[in-house]
């Protein structure tokens, strides 16, 4: 018998063959995959949220007086004046939603989802029933959304935009959600009472302990177990560094105000704050780059150790720091902010001042030239300071072209009932100004005064209409104070870098300012002050460069060459190195 496979045989259906056994294979069923298989499902586990913390009690501290806090009030957000003015803004259809986005260093998928799936910040605040004394601005919500998810953050908003308010509101949220139970806020000594007030304003439900007094008292305060926020100044942190370490204290969050204080990583202050055991590190500073790129490297030694280093170019620094730094400037975020009007007043020295100045400069330059290779930057600084003092007051006669101009301008300001701030780098200058400006009720505010005296001074200036002029030193008065009821700022003499001057100006030009703020900077014509002004302009460029991640200009901070060049001198070889 012969067999053929079906493929080899083509038989017409009607043909009948005799004697041939033919077997056709059974046709196979054609199976079409029509079922759509069920997709795999990924369950994403979310964090189990800690219970909300609403009240804090002292426990196990028999000798400790319980801190008195007002009972928690029913909390609702205060209405925004902007919302009242534009009713369309309050409807749900146009309601602003600020999302909390996961930071770039959060890589685990479940953690990224945790942030993405949260309600918007405005909803979180409403449902948490957290009260605000004033409605935050939209950019301040953005600031909170930036801080809350971050373990390492620098809030570098321009002075006057409410960095402390944003930090307080953010730490408040963390405490409410249970993500933080122990927070330490560190600030300059002169701002402790300011911070205590702001915490009472923006987080009234939080118990706050100020670390101060003698060692025994401070030790007890550090040890308080159920106080969510502790407030200390930098000097206390330095002094109690070993004590805090011995006590094994750990903080879920440490916030540094005016964090440029730690830009020098070798300083005791920087080392002491870096020694604090902490989960999150936030730094608040309006001047993350004051003099050189090393400033921000020093800052990051606290915020995110090892993340930046001094070998990086400004562009690399900017790129590496980008996800950790948030900076806004007034012109970008506060379109409705009252304007700041800048006036550079060029003042001709009096004849006597001019002669005194000329002699001092000639003698000083001659002396520097005579020192040759022995000349140091210190010698130059001494000459610069001497000449600047002459620009303020003639050392021989006491004449002052600047003061004559200032007095004339204050006459009109005082008559209109407005208040003015006058800054100088010398306390002695403030004293002389106070004598001459007594009829305007001028009072002084500087670092040589006690904290109580300074608070009293501010209270009088704010509340007593007889005091129309506040005389401040840059050191004490440029940092953190809220003086937004002053509409005139005078820089009697200039500081070494524009950042500190901006801080001074922003005591008045800040959120809450009632009207335009006029800033007058006095510059003595054809003197060292004009030459310094040129250098200050170039330093402002450096700060903008790093923060905008652009390429830098050739020169960075105030180099030795630049300092000597103020007198058209070349630096000695060793000073230039």
């Amino acid at each position, binding site marked *: 018998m012969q067999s053929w496979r079906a493929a080899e045989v083509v038989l017409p259906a009607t043909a009948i063959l005799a004697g041939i056994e033919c077997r056709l294979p059974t046709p196979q069923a054609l199976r079409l995959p029509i079922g759509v298989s069920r997709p795999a*499902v990924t369950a994403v586990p979310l964090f189990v949220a800690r219970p909300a913390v609403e009240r804090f009690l002292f426990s196990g501290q028999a000798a400790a007086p319980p801190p008195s806090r007002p009972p928690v009030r029913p909390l609702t957000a205060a209405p925004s004046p902007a919302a009242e003015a534009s009713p369309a803004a309050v*409807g749900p259809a146009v309601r602003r939603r600020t999302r909390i986005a996961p930071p770039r260093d959060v890589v685990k998928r479940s953690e990224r989802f945790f942030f993405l799936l949260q309600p918007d910040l405005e909803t979180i605040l409403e*449902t948490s029933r957290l009260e605000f004394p004033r409605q935050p601005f939209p950019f301040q919500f953005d600031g909170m959304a930036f801080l809350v998810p971050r373990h390492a953050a620098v809030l570098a908003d321009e002075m006057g935009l409410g960095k402390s308010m944003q930090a307080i509101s953010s730490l408040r949220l963390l405490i409410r959600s249970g993500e933080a139970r122990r927070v330490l806020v560190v600030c300059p000594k002169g701002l402790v009472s300011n911070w205590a007030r702001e915490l009472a304003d923006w987080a009234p439900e939080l118990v706050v302990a100020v670390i101060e007094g003698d060692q025994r008292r401070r030790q007890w305060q550090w040890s308080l177990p159920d106080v969510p926020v502790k407030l200390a100044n930098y000097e206390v942190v330095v002094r109690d560094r070993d004590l805090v370490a011995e006590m094994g204290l750990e903080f879920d969050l440490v916030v540094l105000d005016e964090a440029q204080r730690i830009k020098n990583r070798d300083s005791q202050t920087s080392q002491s704050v870096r020694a604090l055991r902490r989960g999150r590190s936030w730094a608040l500073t309006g001047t993350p780059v004051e003099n050189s790129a090393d400033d921000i490297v020093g800052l990051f030694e606290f915020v995110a150790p090892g993340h930046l280093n001094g070998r990086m170019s400004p562009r690399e620094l900017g790129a590496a720091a980008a996800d950790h730094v948030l900076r806004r400037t007034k012109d970008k975020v506060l379109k409705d902010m009252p304007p700041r009007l800048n006036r550079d007043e060029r003042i001709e020295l009096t004849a006597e001042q001019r002669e005194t100045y000329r002699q001092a400069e000639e003698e000083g330059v001659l002396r520097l030239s005579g020192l040759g290779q022995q000349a140091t930057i210190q010698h130059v600084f001494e000459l610069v300071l001497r000449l600047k003092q002459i620009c303020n007051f003639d050392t021989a006669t006491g004449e002052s072209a600047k003061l004559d101009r200032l007095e004339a301008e204050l006459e009109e300001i005082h008559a209109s009932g407005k208040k003015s701030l006058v800054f100088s780098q010398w306390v002695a200058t403030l004293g002389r100004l106070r004598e001459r400006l007594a009829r305007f009720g001028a009072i002084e505010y500087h670092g040589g005064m006690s904290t109580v005296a300074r608070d009293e001074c501010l209270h009088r200036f704010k509340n007593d209409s007889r005091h129309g002029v506040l005389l401040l030193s840059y050191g004490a008065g440029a940092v953190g104070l809220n003086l937004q009821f002053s509409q005139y700022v005078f820089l009697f003499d200039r500081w070494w870098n524009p950042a500190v001057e901006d801080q001074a100006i922003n005591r008045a030009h800040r959120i809450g300012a009632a009207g335009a703020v006029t800033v007058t900077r006095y510059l003595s014509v054809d003197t060292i002050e004009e030459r310094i002004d040129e250098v200050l302009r170039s330093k402002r460029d450096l700060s903008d460069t790093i923060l905008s991640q652009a390429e830098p200009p050739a020169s960075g901070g105030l180099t030795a060459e630049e300092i000597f060049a103020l007198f058209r001198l070349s630096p000695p070889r060793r000073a230039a190195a």
Partner: protein
Amino acid sequence: MVGAMAISTQQHVENAYGFLTTVDSPSHGLFGGYLIVDLEGRPLEFHCTAPVRVSRAQQILYGATLHGHLHGRQIGGTLLAEGSVVPRLVLTDQEPLLQARSHTHLPLALVTASRDQEQAGPTAGAGFSLGGLTVVPHTTDRADETVLREHLEGLIQAVDLNEPFERIRAAIDEAQRH
């Protein structure tokens, strides 16, 4: 009875609400996302599917029924069975997902902007207004409309009913990128 099977392993949380949606990615396929939130809109659970791609043969063979089958049974039904927290009800912003109601015991309703609801469609003219939106329960649940409205009136104090869908889309977008 997928829903009944799931109940024994599920937990009851007072005031939980489900939000169900899909995202069609041209490069990956159709994703499904299911978010369960509490009364304050905080997330309790989130589930998302791997992308579903259909072949050309399937498109042809299913024809007009494909859309509903994919959304209703394959994605919607699968997701609603996965949740371990039992919500009071589930909201969706896509009408085809209403077909998931056949595969779950959970009340299901469509959320639309009021102006969209005025247009023609199976849900036209049905439902109730709430918070500037229209909520249209599945026909199975229309008898319980009053109860559903009461549940939702508590939720809308804190949550815009459209907003959780944005979160799901953001999460799915994140899932595609990583």
